[in-house]
């Protein structure tokens, strides 16, 4: 192996890398918050909505979970302008991430809701709580503890798969890597550095999530 690694030019571009990292974090966090709103609404519709709504939600979930994220991204970025919806790469990236996470998170939240014993809900009804109050206090809050690990790993999966939005040049970390690569021709070095940044991000976030769980959610189960 006669290759000489040259990381100098890659490290020199650290402001760009930092910016890309920030965009990736920001995209992932925003998409997660919005995706959770979608997912909570869908989970509600699936567990207590009318029959036709369940059908629509099921179709959405199955469609998203059985097609690649890349194809969904292409659909939002290339196909929707054909019917007049024109988006910037950043918006298209965000929308496809929200739509994607929404489907996966719906199933997670639904599983959490179904883990609540029926008796709890009946007790809520007996206390004359309104339906949304039961959903919020009797179902959602206790379910959060059960679904938290699955949700946080879904966040990390989303953050990693967001690297794909670089194909529409959405300014994220991988897009920055592609730019540096085309300017310096040190592709291997760039991708090593960026892969390490992603690894650091996912390790940091999973440590953070664990900390949050231990400080905020580790209340004892009432039995």
């Amino acid at each position, binding site marked *: *192996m006669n*290759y000489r690694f040259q990381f100098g030019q890659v490290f020199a571009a650290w402001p760009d890398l930092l910016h890309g990292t920030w965009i990736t974090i920001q995209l992932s966090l925003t998409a997660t918050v919005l995706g959770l709103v979608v997912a909570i609404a869908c989970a509600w519709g699936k567990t207590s909505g009318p029959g036709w709504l369940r059908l629509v939600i099921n179709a959405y979930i*199955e*469609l998203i*979970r*059985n*097609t*690649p*994220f*890349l*194809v*969904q991204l*292409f*659909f939002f970025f*290339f*196909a*929707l*302008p*054909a*019917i007049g919806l024109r988006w910037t790469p950043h918006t298209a990236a965000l929308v496809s991430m929200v739509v994607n996470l929404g489907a996966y998170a719906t199933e997670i939240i639904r599983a959490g809701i179904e883990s609540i014993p029926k008796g709890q809900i009946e007790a809520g009804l007996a206390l004359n709580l309104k339906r949304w109050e039961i959903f919020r206090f009797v179902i959602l809050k206790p379910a959060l503890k059960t679904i938290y690990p699955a949700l946080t790993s879904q966040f*990390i999966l989303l953050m*990693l*798969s*967001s*690297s*794909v939005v*670089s*194909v529409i040049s959405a300014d994220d970390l*991988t897009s920055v*890597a592609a730019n540096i690569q085309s300017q310096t021709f040190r*592709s*291997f070095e760039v*991708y*090593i550095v*960026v*892969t390490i940044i*992603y*690894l650091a991000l*996912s*390790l940091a976030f999973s440590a953070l999530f664990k900390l949050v769980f231990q400080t905020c959610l580790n209340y004892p189960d009432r039995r």
Partner: protein
Amino acid sequence: MRTFGWPELWFIVQAAKWTIALSAIAFAGGTAVGLLVALARTGGNAPLARGATVFTQIFQGTPLLLQLFLVFFGAPILGLEINPWAAAAVALTLNSGAFLGEIWRGCIQAVPRGQWEAAEALSLSYPWRMRSVILPQAFKIAVPPTVGYLVQIIKGTSLAAIIGFTEITRAGQIIDNATFQPLLVFGVVGAIYFALCWPLSLLAWRLEKRHARAMSR
């Protein structure tokens, strides 16, 4: 400009065979790597277990796309000729190996403790214990999540399009560039993936239900 007709549709459908071939290779390779990882992590040899854990963390903690890039751009540096086909196969194999290894580690550890102890009490050697007591039971637990993971592998092969391997997604891009009918083209591309993945998802779901029923008996 071409319009989207039967030949264009056929071109995309034809590309599905490359998606399937790549998925099959990734699954076969991933099975070999995953089995090694799962055995290393449950075998009780500390350095080996640590090595397998680090491998898993690296491949689960970084994007598949970047793994693909590293193999594609890294192999020539090691003096290896590589085409998109081989790069995709290697990256997908390592990635699936990490995920399958993690899934199967869970399945091996889900075999009741008493079974391990019984096998030890019979003073069976490690390979013997694994082959005739633990793995057959772990296998039953592992089937539903493994079938479910096949869907992830198929979806993952779409990334090979980015390094220029002509599978379904890349075929779609090519046709879109020629016809400028993205709504139709990417609709068709999505539909083909759905036709490949949905039956597997349903099968995984059914197997899981059956398994849960058997466990609750």
